[in-house]
């Protein structure tokens, strides 16, 4: 077993054909270490979201291989992909992260309920206390603030002890205080229980919470920074002055 929780091997993703052909990912190879918090950075259109979608089995790759643990993701059928996402991956999205008809608690246990698994009570308690939602469990998303909703989303991602959590701009819709809270939880989970997290962001401050930052431009990994802080990341980002918005 390799040390990486998630691996991308020579992954390419091409949309369209002929004149409309767009290379979103161009021969990307990367390892995402177990228990590490990795940020994928890049300007818009760099392919960072596409990379995350491919790594998480939400999108298929045109060529190359993706592994979650020892499982090769490409080639799995819809059923197995669903089970993979449900049992081994956690998601935190930028917005619309919760099911509006379910309470906070029900949202948190949703993947477990879908699998028909009963939650590990002690772990669930730990997660709930970590995100500080004990008194909000019976509220529906519409009764929670944006920050609280995102905390519920984090708790849901953690509840099933997934091998890896993918976070797609998790603080994109939040103010700076709520953002700091959310990123703090993610960091804490990595430090305390060795959770693997892969986060897509374009915000240098967010990236500073990660152990490592990968920089994407035009579908290629162009750089990587260990133990990034806001300044190093910002400096690196500034070098992407060549406009690369081929893709929304």
């Amino acid at each position, binding site marked *: 077993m390799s040390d990486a929780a998630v691996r991308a091997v020579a992954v390419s993703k091409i949309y369209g054909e002929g004149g409309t052909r767009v290379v979103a990912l161009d021969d990307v190879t990367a390892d995402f270490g177990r228990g590490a918090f990795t940020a994928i950075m890049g300007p818009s259109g760099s392919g960072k*979201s596409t990379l995350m*979608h491919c790594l998480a089995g*939400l*999108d298929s790759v045109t060529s190359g291989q993706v592994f979650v643990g020892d499982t090769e993701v490409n080639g799995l059928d*819809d*059923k197995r992909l*669903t*089970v993979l*996402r*449900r*049992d081994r991956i956690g*998601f935190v*999205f930028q917005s*619309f*992260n*919760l*099911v*509006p*008809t*379910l309470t906070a608690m*029900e949202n948190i246990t*949703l*993947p477990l*309920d*879908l*699998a*028909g698994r009963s939650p590990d009570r002690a772990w669930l308690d730990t997660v709930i206390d970590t995100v500080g939602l004990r008194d909000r469990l019976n509220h529906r998303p519409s009764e929670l603030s944006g920050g609280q909703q995102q905390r519920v989303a984090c708790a*849901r991602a953690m509840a099933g002890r997934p091998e890896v959590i993918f976070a797609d701009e998790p603080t994109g819709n939040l103010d700076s205080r709520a953002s700091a809270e959310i990123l703090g939880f993610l960091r804490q989970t990595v430090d305390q229980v060795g959770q693997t997290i892969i986060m897509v962001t374009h915000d240098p401050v967010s990236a500073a919470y990660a152990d490592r930052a990968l920089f994407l431009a035009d579908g290629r990994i162009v750089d990587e920074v260990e133990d990034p802080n806001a300044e190093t990341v910002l400096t690196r980002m500034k070098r992407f002055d060549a406009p690369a918005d081929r893709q929304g």
Partner: protein
Amino acid sequence: MFRLAVKGALARKLRLALTAVSIVLGVAFVSGTYVLTDTLNATFNQIFGNAEHGVSVVVRGTQSFGGQGGGGSADERNLVPDSVLQTVRHTQGVSSAIGVADGYAQLVYQGKAVGNGSAPTLGSAWVGNVPANPLRIVSGRPPAVTGEVVIDQHSAQKFHIPLGTGAEAIVQGQSVPVHIVGIVRFGKDSTLAGATLTAFSPQQAQLLLLGQAGVWSTVQATAAPGVTQPVLAARISQSLSSVPNVQVMTERAYVADQSKRFKDQLKFFNILLLVFAFIAVFVAVFIIFNTFTVLVAQRTRELALLRAVGAGRRQVMAAVIGEAALVGVVSGVLGLFGGVGVAAGLRALIEGLSGGGLVTVGLQIHPRTVIVSLVVGTVVTIVAAIVPAVRAARIPPVAAMRDDFTLPTASLRRRTRLGAVTLVIGAVLLGTGVNGGSALQIGIGALLMFRGVVALSPLLSRPIVGGIGRILPRVWGVSGRLARENALRSPRRTAATASALMIGIALTTTMSIMAASITTSANAQIDKSVGADFIITAKNFGPVPDPVAGQIAKLPGIAGVTSFRNGDMKVGGSREQITGVTPDTVAQTLRLRVTSGSTSSLHGPAVLINHQTAKSKHLKVGDPLHVTFALTGPKTLTVGGVFDDNPIAGKYLLGMSTYDANFRNRLDVVIAVKAATANALNSLRAELAQVLKATPTLELRDQSEFKQNQKRQINQVLSFVLALLVLSLVIAWLGIVNTLALSVFERTREIGLLRAVGMAAGQVRRMVRLEAVVIALFGALLGVVLGIGYGTALVQALHSQGIDTTSIPVNQLILYLVIGVLAGITAAWWPARRAGRLNVLGAIATE
């Protein structure tokens, strides 16, 4: 704004398609009804016009009061003596004249009754090749002597009856052997609307059909060239001024009078169909309303943007209404064509079933049909879209900038309060209406109750849908839980979808309760008031010839045979049904409990009356009763006895001799047979069957078969009504499909999220299906409950008609709930498939 409306409609054509289909179906029902009844009406016109072809003036006997659809004896008139024919022939301006003798004649060929379903079997006289005679001989020759007949071509072909063969003709009072010497057509048609015809020589026709020589049913005159109908009628009236009991009419007036009954029946049929067509259209209203409400909600930002860039409220409203109008017009046109297609199909079906020749005119598409179809399609759609349009106009421009803007909705509290009040008023009206109130009051009560339930349904959806939904999470886990929550999410949408289904199910339930109650009551009445062991009737409510009862009475092992004949008489200005019976046996066969007087009085000019009539008219045995018969005019009868109310005996019983003295009819409607002992019923049955063999139209039933037959007839009516309701149910079903499709569309991102966090496609499909089942079951439940209310109320209202037992067919009602569940499952098939196939990435990436 018009361009915007057109573009809007085109952009949303998939979402509008189901709505359009529901309108198309409703409008097709309306236009199909008009086209069909107009076509039948035109057919009648042509038939009656053909039959009297070449006739200018008709002379017929008078009657004391007019028949109006009772048929048979109710329409009895005085006969016209042959001398009138001679007088008419010699009146100036008459080129020729004929006597018509017509009546009941049933041809029996090789043991088979020659006939066309329930079409009449007619006898008439062959009166030669004159313009007034509609019959034309196509092969053979006219009847020359007694015993020779000509028959219609359609019957000859259908029953393979060759020229020159022998057959039997059953007429009033007897059965005679006939020899078929010719085949005739009606003008150019082989049949007169499916009726079979046997034409005798004039003398034999008079004796067999009218019961005496030297008389005619009518005398019909053809005018000389240049003489108009009114002029000739005036001249004939002049020359007949001294002849009593005849009336002279122009051909036009006569045809109108003759066809009136058929046209009245057709009008009733037309209204009946239209009622169900409008129920279907009404169901469609809920679907249109739902669709436009959802579309407006989905387009909140787009409409707000319009407002922000300068569109006025009216313009936004006009855009939505315009879109509705466009959908309405297109659907109206399609519905019109659909209806014409359905009518064409039904016409072909009628032709196919009857063997052709019945519907002799093409499809009648009147301007009225076109106008009504288009107006119904358009107006209904616009009216249903008004509320959503008004709501669209209320969207503030600022909504364009905000992500989370939702349209404010009128408080459910006001709607609930209004609904509760409406429901209570409706229930009170219905409740008091059924105990002697008017039909109008009952109708308004039922309608208000319906309005009330619709208004309350969003509120009811919470406990009921929530209650039904409670088992879902237990059985189906998260899918079930989400399905329940989704169904509860938009109470108005759920309620409108369920209400559409509720209408059909409520009416279905009402009809089923009525049918079950009528069956139960009829069975109880048969048990209580039929003492006969065997009951003989003719197929299709046809008549039983007079001699049959006499032949049966001669069989050994018979305790009594009672003949029943129907007729009308006037008592104190109101028209009453009477029954002529065999006096000595009626007490046995009808279990008649005579409380004063006796049945033997019926041998004289007496009348037996039921208890209720005796009470209301303050009559007792020996009192005179002044009555009027259509044929014989005013008479005085003596009250010979009073019997306990008996639904089969009715109000007035006459002895057969009194009946025969005042009615020309000699045909029974029923013969009831009582066996001497109960232990030889099987052998008696065989003997009866032997007697009836000569008259193949007759049917022999024992008491339980008789009950079965009653039940079967009631269920036939029920099936017919339910068939008319099917379209409403189909439209309601489309409504469920529509709501689910719109909801799935609206929840694309949510479904994407669910899929992303691990919901399998199968679980998504199940979630959508279960939501549909819950909504459908909610609608079916409301419908069944409302239907039970309506049904029991209507049965209560019919108490005085002898429907005194309320019977709730629980199994059928459960079946309707199951149908509701199945409707939900099938309606969800396509939306669920779509939801399951949603591309996860596409769904969550929609920004």
